[in-house]
């Protein structure tokens, strides 16, 4: 059954208002995995804002102040809540774009919601009731990543935990599904199935090619599959695209194997938009299943 998907809004006021939905322009949620410095954040935001504007793609800047799910306790976790939020606030002020940041701890929620337009629930934590409810109560738009271990239909439970607070500004994102150990696979059916919740859906192209902890104390990834998977996800009906983007991915302080180089973003987005727009011109067919008589 083709699902009715509601529009959600992110930002507005001091920053651009982004609306994600079935009949809205494509949105990129993109930026470096971790906030590395104010200078770096402002530079990447400026570049991505220019690229997205040139293509008619909506833009939400993404970066995180504490990557709590790194493979190793000695890996770089980020600048921390206070300094990280100051950087995100600068991105908002300087470039006028809404910002997305993942929050792993309920104690960080209140401070984060004062700055961040789009609160992201990390995939590994997508079942955590206290975290989801705390996020929902902020009144900010909520971005829930589907756990690599979660079925797409069970994401209804995660969304309902947020919705139980009265907040229905929810985006659900597929970032790959565990395929044995240290390997993910993209099941494009996830996008259509998650739309059954009535919330728009997003495809995370850079984490989907991740090989979790495959390098021992850090994750690997096969970036070469990103372009094909982006086109597939747009064709499968994604309402937004998420990518972690860096100007020197091999030297990135977090997830170096999966972040995509800035120089590829324009062409990937151009192709994504072509497929995205085409899909909206051609209604999805509804086909009946085998049914026992």
């Amino acid at each position: 059954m083709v699902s009715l998907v509601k529009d959600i809004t992110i930002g507005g006021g001091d920053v651009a208002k982004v609306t994600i939905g079935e009949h809205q322009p494509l949105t990129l949620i993109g930026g470096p995995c971790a906030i590395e410095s104010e200078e770096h954040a402002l530079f990447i935001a400026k570049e991505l804002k220019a690229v997205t504007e040139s293509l008619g793609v909506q833009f939400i800047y993404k970066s995180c102040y504490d990557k709590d799910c790194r493979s190793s306790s000695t890996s770089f976790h980020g600048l921390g809540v206070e300094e990280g939020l100051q950087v995100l606030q600068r991105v908002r002020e300087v470039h006028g774009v809404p910002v997305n940041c993942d929050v792993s701890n309920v104690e960080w929620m209140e401070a984060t919601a004062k700055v961040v337009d789009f609160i992201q629930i990390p995939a590994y934590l997508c079942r955590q009731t206290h975290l989801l409810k705390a996020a929902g109560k902020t009144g900010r738009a909520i971005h829930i990543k589907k756990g690599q271990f979660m079925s797409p239909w069970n994401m209804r439970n995660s969304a309902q935990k947020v919705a139980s607070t009265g907040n229905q500004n929810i985006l659900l994102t597929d970032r790959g599904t565990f395929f044995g150990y240290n390997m993910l696979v993209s099941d494009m059916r996830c996008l259509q199935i998650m739309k059954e919740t009535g919330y728009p859906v997003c495809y995370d192209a850079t984490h989907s090619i991740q090989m979790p902890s495959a390098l021992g104390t850090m994750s690997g990834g096969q970036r070469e599959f990103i372009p094909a998977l982006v086109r597939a996800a747009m064709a499968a009906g994604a309402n937004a695209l998420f990518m972690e983007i860096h100007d020197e991915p091999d030297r990135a302080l977090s997830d170096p194997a999966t972040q995509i180089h800035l120089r590829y973003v324009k062409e990937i987005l151009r192709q994504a938009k072509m497929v995205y727009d085409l899909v909206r011109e051609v209604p999805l067919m509804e086909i009946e299943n085998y049914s026992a008589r």
Partner: protein
Amino acid sequence: MLIKEIMATGTERPMVNEDDCLRDVLDEMNRKGLGAVCVMCGEFLAGLVTDGDIRRLILSTQKPLPHLFMTPAREVGSKAPKKIRPEATLQEGLAMFEKYQCWVLPVIDGSNRLLGLVHLHRLLKALIPST
């Protein structure tokens, strides 16, 4: 005797919220043992799910069971089930069961508020006390 005198009321009534999932519907069905569940929007009747609806649903889907379990109650069963008023007589109720070939009828007031549920077994027992 009137329908309101024999209908299941209060916590006897099998009820789920329309946002509840199919798994909740089945649990409520088992708890109340009437072979049907009223799907509610607040205090108003939004639909009815019967054993037969579940049978037809299972035969008409290829979804894996965990996916099927997550189906919202509002998408299952009948959105406009046959209903009866509390002031109807048992004979009128029996005629409805016969006419529509059903086993259960939600009992509603003039505003579609759910008052109770009447099952054919209970109605027959009232009509034929020796059974």
